[in-house]
Each structure stands twice: as structure tokens, then as C-alpha cells.
């Protein structure tokens, strides 16, 4: 850990310590707050009885399944719209009309159509993930160096190879940024669906703790969700740098 990141931890730790002291001094009795030490203990407890691990598995399953489906659909549409301008213009109004619908607003329909469980949650997560990928991959395809497309034409690359060997790799660094955005959204939407209605995963865990008047456990879930989101992003940033460090560099230069 560098000196800088150590410095960045000083303030949050100080706040937590102050809160702990204050909670102990006032013998805090609350349905929404708990001292940090109790939150940590609740977190350990939830790990010990494996309940939080099962909930994490359920939430991440929905998150990744929805993310994968949404990314594939968004990528296919984004690339198609980026290549075929006519198609893009035909679909533009439709896309702009559907895109602003909050994914969570689909919950009632999805619930009627699919019932409780993974499928409904995955569909809603996928819907939320489609748009960032679609918009950014479309822009990425449009901004591909036109010379590369001419090279593809001059070499008479068949259309499928043109997409696979030129368009996708050229657009991939920017598509990956869209994927990162969508991954964050996927986790948020999955937990939201669970809190709102689906009796699964971390969101349902929060609701259960709240109804059991266990603010310590509720906050333990929150801390854990934050940690998962943070880890997910760090993982993707590392992957991005490893995969596209060179492409990102040489794409701009030369």
C-alpha cells in the first residue's frame, strides 16, 4: 500500500472510530444505526452461518447472467447500428423511446410474465445493461479509423471476418469501458430488484435484517455489497489495463 492510499484511509477510519465512541458513550438504541464493532461482528456471524455467502452467490448469479445477456444483446445491436447507418436511423426513435424507461419499472410486467426467482431478475438486469453497451459500442464502431475499413475492403475480407478481425478488436477498448459501466449497473439493479420484491440474494438479506430489527446485520450487508462492487470494479480496471494497455496506447499514437 502506498503512502497516498494510506493517507486516504485516515479520515474514514477516524470517522468510524468517533462513531464507535459516540455509540458506546450514548448506549445507542436504534433500528437504523449500529456501532461499527457490532456491524463487523454481524458480518462475521453472517459468514459463519454461511447465509451471506449463499445470498452473495444468488445475487452474483443474477448479476453476471444479466450482465452477459445484456452485453451480448447490446453489443450485437451496437455493432449492427454502427455499421449500417440506415438501420440505425430506422431504430433511433425506438431506442431513444425505450432507453429512458427505468429498468425497475419493468418489475411488475416481469413479475407477471416470469414470476419470482432468477429469471425475472436476470431479465431486468439484462435490460439495464443493454443500453450503455449499445450506445458506447455504436459510437466505438463509428469512430474506427476509416483507413482500416478500406484495408479490409482492399483485402476482400468476408463480412463476418471484417466484424471479427477488424471492427471488434478496433472497438474493443471502448466496448470494455461500456462493459465496466454495465457491470456496476448490473449489481445495483440486481440488489434493487431483490430489495423491491425478489426473495433472493443480498437485497432480500437486507430486507430480512431490517424486518428482524437487526440494524447491525442490515448495515453488515450494505458494507458487504459495497465491498463486492468495489472489488468488481478493481478487477475490471486491472483486466482493462492488462488487456488494452498496448491497444489503448498505440490506438492514439503513430
Amino acid at each position, binding site marked *: 500500500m502506498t503512502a497516498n492510499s494510506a493517507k486516504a484511509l485516515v479520515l474514514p477510519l477516524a470517522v468510524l472510530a468517533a462513531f464507535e465512541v459516540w455509540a458506546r458513550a450514548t448506549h445507542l438504541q436504534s433500528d437504523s444505526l449500529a456501532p461499527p464493532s457490532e456491524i463487523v461482528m454481524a458480518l462475521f456471524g453472517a459468514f459463519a452461518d454461511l447465509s451471506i455467502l449463499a445470498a452473495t452467490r444468488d445475487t452474483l448469479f443474477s448479476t453476471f447472467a444479466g450482465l452477459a445477456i445484456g452485453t451480448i444483446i447490446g453489443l450485437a445491436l451496437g455493432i449492427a447500428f454502427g455499421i449500417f447507418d440506415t438501420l440505425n436511423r430506422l431504430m433511433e426513435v425506438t431506442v431513444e423511446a425505450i432507453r429512458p424507461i427505468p429498468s425497475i419499472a419493468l418489475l411488475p410486467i416481469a413479475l407477471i410474465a416470469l414470476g419470482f426467482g432468477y429469471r425475472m431478475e436476470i431479465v431486468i438486469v439484462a435490460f439495464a445493461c443493454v443500453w450503455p453497451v449499445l450506445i458506447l459500442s455504436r459510437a466505438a464502431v463509428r469512430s474506427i479509423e476509416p483507413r*482500416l475499413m478500406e484495408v479490409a475492403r*482492399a483485402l476482400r475480407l468476408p463480412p463476418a471476418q471484417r466484424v471479427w478481425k477488424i471492427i471488434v478488436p478496433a472497438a474493443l477498448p471502448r466496448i470494455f469501458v461500456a462493459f465496466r459501466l454495465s457491470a456496476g449497473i448490473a449489481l445495483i439493479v440486481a440488489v434493487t430488484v431483490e430489495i423491491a420484491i425478489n426473495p433472493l440474494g443480498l437485497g432480500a438479506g437486507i430486507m430480512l435484517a431490517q424486518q428482524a430489527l437487526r440494524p447491525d446485520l442490515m448495515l453488515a450487508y450494505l458494507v458487504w455489497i459495497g465491498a463486492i462492487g468495489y472489488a468488481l470494479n478493481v478487477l475490471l480496471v486491472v483486466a482493462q489495463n492488462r488487456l488494452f494497455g498496448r491497444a489503448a496506447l498505440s490506438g492514439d499514437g503513430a
Partner: protein
Amino acid sequence: MASAAKRLEAVPGIPAPQIAFDGVTLVLGGKTIIENLSLGVRPGEFLCIVGASGCGKTTALRLAAGLYQPTSGKVNFDGQPMRAPRREIAIVFQDYGKALLPWRTAAGNVSLALEAGGMPSAERPARIEELLRTVGLPGHAGKYPSEMSGGMQQRLQIARCLAQEPKTLLMDEPFGALDAMTRQGLQDEVLSLVAASGATVIFVTHDLDEAIYLGDRVIGLLPHPGRIGIELSVNLPRPRDQLSTREHPEFLRLRRQLFDFVKATEQ
């Protein structure tokens, strides 16, 4: 107006042109870029096109490549109308930095042309190595374009074009962005590569000396709209030599003629 293509066909003993422009006019965005251009390039000929910037020389090359379709008139390749780019025609672009795939190594970039031609993957490595050796890049197979100098990148692009085994090589100011020493080296290499493969070449340049040094024939275009202003046959002995060819009286005579032409078009 008798087209150059027809004129060439009419002469017995001279082979039919490989690339023939017949009364080609190109209008882009309401502007006439090229007007009534007729031109025949014989198999194995090295044709250089010169002219001021904006005279349509790059456009003419793109028409020959099939990247543009003429508004009127015809472009024929081996007697067939050009409707789209063809495998037998390779293009070397001036901006090598944009024409190479930055995410592929030198070997990968050459491989692209082989993949496009449907060569089985087992046969590719040997061919790639051979091509990289041909253009003077042995041992650089694993390098990315961003790790190579401008001259090396242009060599790599030439290697990719040779991988197409082209009958015709179209070169668009390929050495325009390179320093003088690198440029002279590459000129000689292109000449020997072309001599070895027997390919037809159309070479666009704004460097008049380069045009005479390389070409069998030099065409000077007039701008607005692009049309042929001068046509010179270069009867200099081959192989050409950077020193003796450039000191040859014929070279100097052609050089004077071409410079006078360009000067006149500027006024």
C-alpha cells in the same frame, strides 16, 4: 477523343492494358474531381502519377483500386469492369500508422492478408516469415507496429500487400512521410521487389525525382478537375541506381520537362 486504352490495344505487339481507364469522370459531392480520364497501364509497367495536391491523383488510384466507382466512363482490369476491390490488386497507403492493425504484431498484420485469402493456418507461419524477410524485417515478427519506426511500418504494409500476391500494386505516396535516406532505400527495394514479381505498379507521388527514378512512364495531372496534362516515357536503363541514374542526361532532361510542367500549372 481516342482513349489511351484503345490506342494501346490498336498497336500490334503491345499487350492489352491490365488497367484501363476509359473516359472516367468522378463527381463527389457535386464537385468534379476527375474529368474524362483515359489511361492504359500495361502488365508489368511501372506508372508514376504526379501533380499538385488536390489534382486527383490519389482519387485516380482509388478508382483503380475499386474503392470508388466512376460517375461515368469505365475502369477495366484485365478486360473486366471493376465493380469492387479485387484480390489481385493491393494498395499501399501513405498513412501506414493508420493502415496497420495496432493490436496485431508484424506477423499478425501480414497474416491478415493470408487469412483473407483463405490460406490454411498451418501454412501461414512459413509464408509470413518469408514475406517479412523479403521486405527486410526478419526477426521483427513479434513486434507491434507501435514499436517500429516509420520505415519499418511501411515495409510491413508492403509485406502485407505482397501477401496478396498482387498482379497490380497501387502505391499512394508511400514514402511521403519518410526521411530522405529511408526513402531512397525503400525506392530501390520496391524496384527490386517489383522486378522479381513482375507486378504492374501505379505509384502516386508529389516527388518529381522519385517519379522519374522509379517509373517506366510518368503522367502529370492538371487540377480542377483532374485530367492528364503531360505524359513522359522514361527510357532510362534498369536496374536503376541512386547515383548514376540521377546523373543521367535523360533523367535531367525529363526532370526539367516535368518541373516546367508543374511550374506552368501553378501559374
